[in-house]
């Protein structure tokens, strides 16, 4: 049905060079981390500011918990296109999948950087060691499997580029199985990322700590998936100077608004059920953070429910950014801001090297996206298109 082509264009530009520099800086600090430890001193401050009160910092909360949420584009679209059979969104699948492959793979890499005893990582997948009662076990196994599924789902794109027609055809034959697995695994681990907080109990403020964390994390991950597709489609149209996908995006916006409304309804119903509504008006710092989250979640609903605003690429972009900030803040609040350690006074704010590693990871992701979108047949080929230099469209599948 949809045809794909590469975006074309030069690979070495000021933007890609800048991104490459950021990646190099991150690589330096990662090297220091592996030689001296995750809290070791560097000339630029400690590698991380982690401590026993806040033992998980941005390497876990951003790189993994938020990062894989941002990489849910492939999952959210697969649900829509293949499970709910909305073929009209098909042109968005490949770019979304590309971002997902990288988001998840880098999430996996980030885990290895954060793990103190990384050389033992295989224990988690080994029956002799694994503890199936652990939420972390479920998250790790599921993400490890999903990374493989994603690469298989994405592989026909690479096979086409290399002219391996038979290989592409073979993978495409079983694509329906891959897609089903690709819908199942994120459902499992995106919810479990929320369940990670359950055992932390009283340390997490009751306005965030609920047995419904898995459901809330799953719904917000699906909306992050849709929002990131809108975000990337808009940026790609600008950055690669390609025709906009507005007609499709505005329909997607309606779906996103629906998922968001369901999320907010569930969140407030749960707070009311647990008698927490009063504390939302306590006027403390956490209440402020709560309402900031809610405002960011509500803005896209407001924007996307107006049919005239949905026509505006700018409104679609602002709405998707607001949604991404909302879900990211929800995760940061749950794991860091609403967390009160016991025992001693603890404080955490990421150190410069810690931030640079995370920034380097993001830079690597963006760089890889740009390079691969220019090289591989990823972008939706428009019928009559007047856009810039393009390579021959690659007919793919039906």
């Amino acid at each position: 049905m949809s045809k794909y082509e590469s975006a074309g264009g030069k690979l070495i530009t000021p933007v890609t060079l800048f991104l490459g520099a950021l990646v190099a800086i991150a690589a330096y600090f990662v090297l220091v981390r592996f030689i001296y430890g995750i809290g070791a001193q560097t000339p630029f401050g400690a590698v991380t500011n982690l401590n026993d009160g806040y033992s998980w910092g941005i390497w876990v909360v951003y790189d993994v918990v938020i990062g894989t949420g941002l990489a849910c584009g492939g999952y959210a679209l697969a649900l829509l296109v293949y499970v709910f059979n909305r073929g009209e969104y098909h042109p968005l699948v490949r770019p979304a999948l590309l971002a997902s492959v990288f988001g998840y793979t880098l999430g996996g890499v980030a885990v290895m950087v954060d793990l103190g005893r990384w050389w033992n990582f295989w224990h988690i997948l080994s029956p002799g060691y694994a503890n199936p009662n652990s939420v972390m076990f479920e998250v790790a196994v599921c993400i490890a499997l999903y990374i493989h599924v994603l690469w298989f789902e994405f592989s026909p794109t690479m096979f086409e580029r290399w002219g391996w027609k038979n290989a592409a055809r073979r993978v495409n034959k079983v694509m329906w199985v891959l897609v089903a697995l690709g819908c199942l695994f994120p459902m499992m681990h995106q919810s479990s990322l929320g369940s990670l907080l359950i055992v932390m109990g009283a340390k997490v403020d009751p306005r965030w700590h609920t047995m419904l964390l898995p459901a809330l994390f799953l719904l917000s991950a699906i909306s992050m998936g849709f929002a990131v597709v809108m975000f990337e489609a808009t940026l790609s149209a600008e950055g690669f100077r390609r025709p906009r996908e507005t007609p499709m995006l505005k329909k997607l916006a309606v779906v996103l608004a629906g998922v968001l409304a369901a999320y907010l309804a569930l969140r407030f119903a749960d707070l009311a059920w647990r008698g927490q509504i009063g504390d939302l008006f306590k006027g403390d710092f956490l209440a402020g953070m709560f309402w900031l989250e809610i405002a960011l979640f509500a803005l896209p609903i407001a924007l996307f429910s107006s049919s005239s605003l949905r026509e505006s690429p700018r409104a679609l972009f602002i709405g998707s950014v607001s949604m991404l900030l909302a879900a990211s803040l929800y995760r940061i609040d749950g794991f860091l801001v609403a967390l009160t350690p016991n025992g001693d006074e603890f404080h955490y704010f990421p150190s410069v090297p810690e931030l640079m590693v995370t920034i380097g990871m993001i830079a690597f992701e963006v760089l890889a996206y740009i390079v691969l979108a220019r090289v591989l047949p990823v972008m939706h080929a428009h019928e009559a298109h007047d856009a810039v230099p393009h390579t021959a469209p690659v007919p793919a599948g039906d």
Partner: protein
Amino acid sequence: MTVSRRNFLRGAAAGCTAATAAVVAPAPAEARGNKELPPEAVGLLFDATMCVGCKACVVACKEANGLPIQVPMERAFEDPSQALSPTTFNIIKMYKDGEARTKDTAQDGFSFIKRSCMHCVDPGCVSACPVNAMTKDAKTGVVSYNADACIGCRYCVMACPFGIPKFDYDKAVPEIHKCQLCNHLWKEGRFAACADVCPTGATLFGPVTKLLEEAKRRQAMEPGTVAKFPRRSTETGDQTKEKPVAKYVDHIYGEKEGGGTQMLMLSGVPFDKLGLPKLPERSYASMSETVQHTLYDGLVAPAVVLGGLLAATYRSSRRKGGEEDGSHE
């Protein structure tokens, strides 16, 4: 390809079936309750009203566990350790209010408090650890750590409600460190060094059932009554000199907290003022595992959902026709 309304409805129906299965399938699984106290559980009873803050236990703990000591035992009170750390598994902290005149009173008073692993009956760290590096002994209930299994994820640190497991952030080969009730000394007939050394009987080692009995006996006594108290361990027969019993708050910390702990505490000052968290009787491990077991026991629910998803994706791949059915294209 165009999507006819009928096809859409069919696909949507399949999608909804999968979604419903995700919600309905887990219903039969049972909630996991709190774990029970192991049959031969041992632990500590800390009575803050008997503690004089000499910190001999802090130094004895370091000696017993091969941790760096900066002061000799007779000057233990000069030990500079301020908090639990990879080299401090046991610490005595002080509570002060106002003028800090009277011991064991909340207002204008002071109190000491021992902080070390509580050896939870249903520990969060053990439930959280993905690789069974944190384990609870089935007989004695001691919670111990195995570095050889550990992957260094620090979920135990995040899960512990008492802030006990400590991690080496500045080492390339880090480990978790915590109190293991000196279980490495038991085969020599020795027991927890902190209790062994305590001159006042403030820290007492023994079977948890006996410790709880002793705690209840003390609470039942009229404040000011003169009595002897067991010292070092309930099993050694050591006794303190006769001394008056203090006025306690009506609470044995650890009897119920978070599903119970094998370290029990008595105090004249409310426990939240001493920095101990208020915890519900249901353990957080049981809540977390109830969610996990509900969703994943026997992988029934994921299998059902996968079945629904496969049906939906298979249909959607057939419907398109052509050679490369169900491709991503």
